[in-house]
């Protein structure tokens, strides 16, 4: 196979692009810039840790079913693990988001990193919302009854039916987690590829600007 033909191949382009933008040294670095030294940086990894726990406990709940997590002590405990993981997930994510805002973390051509992060936040709200709808308790009955009016009011309710338990379960345990998983993966890979955004005034001297 000639070199020119090789360049035409999609797989070749992908491999070369990957090697150029995200070599393994960037993917799994053992050093970080000296400025990466604040408690605020912990909230990103804490969000991921919570997400891992949410997925693990969510899978467990899905396999066992509603009568298990309502009717047995172990089931209710796993349900509680899922519940508190979600609460912490959002706390960590919101702090992470605010932190990145005040760092203006989209600088240095990191716009897509911000966008994927914000999409993950909005998508997580949708995923959590469907989770509240499939709790199969009084709260989920009431939320579905109330929320239908919001979605119906702008026509979304014609297809997205919050009172349809089957549809909400599918969205919560399959469709939305896959979407969130993909967005999160892209976000993390972008962080690794682009590196952690430097301090706002880091290059003032080079640019001859005052602080």
């Amino acid at each position, binding site marked *: 196979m000639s070199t020119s033909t090789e360049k035409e191949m999609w797989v070749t382009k992908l491999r070369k692009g990957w090697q150029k933008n995200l070599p393994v040294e960037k993917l799994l670095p053992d050093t970080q810039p000296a400025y990466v030294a604040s408690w605020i940086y912990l909230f990103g*990894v804490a969000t991921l840790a*919570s997400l891992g726990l949410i997925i693990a406990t969510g899978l467990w709940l899905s396999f066992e079913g509603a009568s298990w997590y309502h009717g047995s002590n172990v089931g209710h405990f796993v349900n509680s693990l899922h519940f*508190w993981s979600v609460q912490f997930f959002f706390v960590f994510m919101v702090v992470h988001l605010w932190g990145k805002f005040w760092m203006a973390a989209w*600088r240095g*051509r990191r716009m897509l990193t911000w966008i994927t992060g914000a999409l993950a936040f909005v998508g997580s*709200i949708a995923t959590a919302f469907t989770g509240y709808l499939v709790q199969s308790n009084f709260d989920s009955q009431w939320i579905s009854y109330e929320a239908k009016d919001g979605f119906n009011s*702008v026509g979304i309710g014609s297809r997205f039916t919050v009172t349809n338990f*089957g549809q909400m379960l599918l969205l919560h345990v399959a469709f939305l987690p896959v979407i969130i998983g993909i967005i999160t993966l892209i976000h993390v890979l972008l962080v690794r590829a682009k590196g952690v955004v*430097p*301090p706002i005034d880091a290059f003032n001297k080079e640019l001859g600007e005052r602080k």
Partner: protein
Amino acid sequence: MSDRRAELESAPWGGRTRRYDLIKEGVVAVVIVAIVVAALSTLFGSPDEKQVTFKEWATAAPADFYATSVQELAGSSGTGGYGAPYNKASDGVNLGPLYLAKLLGVTHPVDTVNDFVITPLTTVSNAAPVADALKTWQASDAKTQSTWATNYDNALTKVNQDQAKVPAGNYGPVPELAAGLLTMAQAGSLDGALLSQGNYFQTDNTKQTLFLGDGSYFNDKSTASNLQGSTWGMMNETGRYPGQAWLWLYSFWYQIPPFNNGDSHPFGANADAWIMVIMGALSLGLIIMPLIPIVNKLPYKIKIHRLVWKNYYQEENL
């Protein structure tokens, strides 16, 4: 922002570095979060207030259930007059000239008379008065049925839902049908019948939920739990647990004028639609925030970043 600055900020970092074990950090984070989550789960558990069933409703508040059944037959319930996507009874809410739900049509048809009352009654063996009432109803034309149900609904409303005080009138078999449905609900047969609608497999609870919401019992119960939208209910949870706190901004709009006044036009009466649009716009704004003038300059003006990089700024004398 100059291209030169963007170039410098996007280039691989050439300054001082420090050791950083990414894998160890991840593992430690998972372990710590898991321990905290397990501790809270052990100490506080999680909210799990039992679901409301039709048996519970019909037993605890029979007059409310009975009156709601009559309203379903008369088409005067909330669902009966809802509009799209359930029926064509009204235009629904609007965004100025846009009636989006109406535009998209009846995609989830709900016939309160048959789906909520008549069909469920035909799935069980009824006592003679109810069986006869069903025959009479089914043998009548729609206009007569509507007249009977509306007459009885109005009469029942006048006496504050007290059946014993309803004067004699042209009600046809409506009182017997409502009584039959009450008996069926109290026996626990209505929940399944509403869901299945004569079928075996079913996962759509829309009809049950709409019927449940048409009565007062369900609403009163949610009011007692502070779940109503007017009391930040969107982000509340049953019991003393945190709810969807991340919906605070969505919930906020329902607390302020004009959205907290359902009688004010055009915004209050159509609050659901306008708030959905506002939140959609704000969500989009969050996603493209780096492109929004003024907002994207705030981190430069309000120098919170100096706290984040405090050590670096000191060491570099910035």
